[in-house]
């Protein structure tokens, strides 16, 4: 049965369906629908909800519930996610599974409360201290929010690693029909490494501290091997109209919705525009972008930032094609007309491309 929900509410309900019973949060716009939903829904399923005294406390409570073997989640928006970085580094270093939702808003600092994608670097390059990665999933619709949050818990458990859902104010607050079609999880397998009291077994210790020389390097090598496995097996992306495309757009989340509109508008023209939409931002879909870079002359990355994911696109294409960027910041959302004008600009003197221009005028 389809329901009309905001992305934030869909994320909360999907977590419940996935068996999350421990949610800790702190209010911040634009993710408030999520914490509000959890406060009434958790007691209905016998779960725990705490409005924590801070983002730091909330992520630390997640640390505890994850260590104790529960499925656990926290959510916030950009400034709050900055506060959580301490805990995220400890969770990654302790190999604890959990889900963190970031409904991005504009920055830096207090910024504003409108949609932004300026936390890409923070999400995929570490954010906290140390050599670590978290899996980063980027939904571009409310339905996808629900599906990815559900999968995020399985991925977190599979790899004993934090998973972040990187949304934005638009994805979080937009209402769309959504269906929770996946299995409602009640009984989850026991985690043998978790803290349950050492009844009749050797004790379990959850830690990230390796003070004896050589141990930490060994542990980091183990983490890097795990990350390599994740990169080999967990890449997700959507490719739209990429066959024989003249230009490829690369965009995720809300930006990808705009780019999809551009692809749709250009379908009847001789000039073909394709879209690669990374669904996992880490692991980044390197293979498809590398392949595409051998076939097209140029790629245009579109983001609601001053240019962050474009760095990964450039690293992946290694100069095989030109990589361009169009972005808006501080709550600005690119329009399809702006993207079309940018396409025409990067392929100058191309008659076919110029046919796009009249589309830019059509609103």
């Amino acid at each position, binding site marked *: 049965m389809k329901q009309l929900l905001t992305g934030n509410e869909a994320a909360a309900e999907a977590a419940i369906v996935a068996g999350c019973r421990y949610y800790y949060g702190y209010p911040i716009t634009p993710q408030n629908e999520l914490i509000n939903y959890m406060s009434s829904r958790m007691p209905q399923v016998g779960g725990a909800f705490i409005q924590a005294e801070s983002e730091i406390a909330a992520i*630390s409570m997640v*640390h*505890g519930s994850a260590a*104790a073997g529960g499925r656990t989640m926290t959510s916030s928006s950009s400034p709050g996610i900055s506060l959580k970085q301490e805990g995220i580094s400890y969770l990654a270093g302790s190999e604890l599974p959990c889900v963190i939702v970031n409904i991005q808003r504009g920055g830096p600092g207090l910024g504003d409360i409108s949609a932004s994608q300026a936390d890409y670097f923070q999400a995929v390059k570490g954010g906290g201290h140390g050599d670590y990665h978290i899996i980063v999933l980027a939904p571009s619709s409310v339905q996808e929010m629900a599906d990815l949050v559900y999968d995020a818990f399985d991925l977190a458990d599979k790899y004993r690693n934090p998973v972040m859902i990187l949304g934005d104010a638009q994805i979080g607050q937009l209402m769309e029909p959504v269906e929770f079609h996946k299995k409602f999880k009640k009984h989850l397998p026991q985690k043998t490494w978790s*803290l349950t*009291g*050492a009844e009749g077994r050797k004790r379990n*210790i*959850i830690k990230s*501290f390796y003070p004896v020389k050589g141990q930490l390097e060994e542990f980091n090598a183990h983490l890097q091997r795990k990350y390599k496995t994740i990169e080999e097996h967990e890449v997700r992306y959507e490719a739209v109209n990429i066959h024989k495309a003249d230009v490829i757009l690369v965009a995720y989340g809300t930006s990808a919705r705009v780019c999809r509109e551009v692809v749709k508008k250009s379908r009847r023209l001789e000039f073909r525009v394709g879209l690669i939409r990374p669904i996992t931002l880490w692991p980044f879909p390197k293979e498809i972008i590398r392949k595409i870079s051998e076939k097209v002359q140029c790629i245009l990355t579109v983001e609601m930032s001053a240019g962050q994911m474009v760095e990964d696109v450039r690293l992946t294409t290694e100069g095989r094609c030109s990589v361009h960027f169009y972005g808006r910041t501080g709550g600005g959302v690119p329009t399809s007309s702006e993207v079309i004008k940018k396409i025409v600009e990067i392929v100058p003197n191309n008659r076919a491309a110029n046919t796009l221009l009249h589309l830019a005028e059509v609103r």
Partner: protein
Amino acid sequence: MHALYEKPKAFIDTATHFCPGCGHGIVLRLIAEIIDAWGIRGKTIGLAPVGCAVLAYNYLDIDMCEAAHGRPPAVATGIKRVHPDHIVFAYQGDGDLAAIGTAEIIHAANRGENITFIFVNNAVYGMTNGQMAPTTLLGQKTATTPAGRDMANCGHPIRVCELLAVLEGTSYLERVSLSSPENIRKTKKAIEKGFKTQIEKKGFSLIEILSPCPIYWRMDPNEAMRHIDEEMSRTFPLGVVKNWEQTN
């Protein structure tokens, strides 16, 4: 043959990293004795702090979790939600609990978390070479108060038990010390009372233990013990600050 005195089974037989004359070994041993005597190894989960007791999990043979500096009350809260019938305790020092983790301990207390906090107050940051702690005495010389702690610049030492006592959520608060065999026995009784508070689901318990740090007090171990009785206990008076059994 009946052994009159032996190492508790829950206390791992290994050399510790503690300095000579440090109080941490005594406190950890008391916890291990209680775990053995009460047979609660299988349902006890401990939290290690950041600070001198960071390696507590190397010495206690129970399930244990690390927490970021100051965060044990929040991490313990997350564990307790998953295992509400287990005995969950957090072991914290003065920097961990009363400086960087002030918000976490106050709110855990205010929620009345049914958790036991073992708060080792030695009035100094031992792990990082002896800087001022929130509980450093007025006039006490440390690495960051070379002329002695002064009220105007550094404020007054924080009395944690009295601070928490005003919160409705706290059930049992007691300050004890390690300065003599008699006081060590009282410390053990206080920890037992903390665990009992938790087992009977009476809520938040905290035992503040005045503990010697001869190295960073620049004293020999005997002097350090006398210093607890003669100086430290004047700023931090020993005794029960709050007790749910008496308020009934």
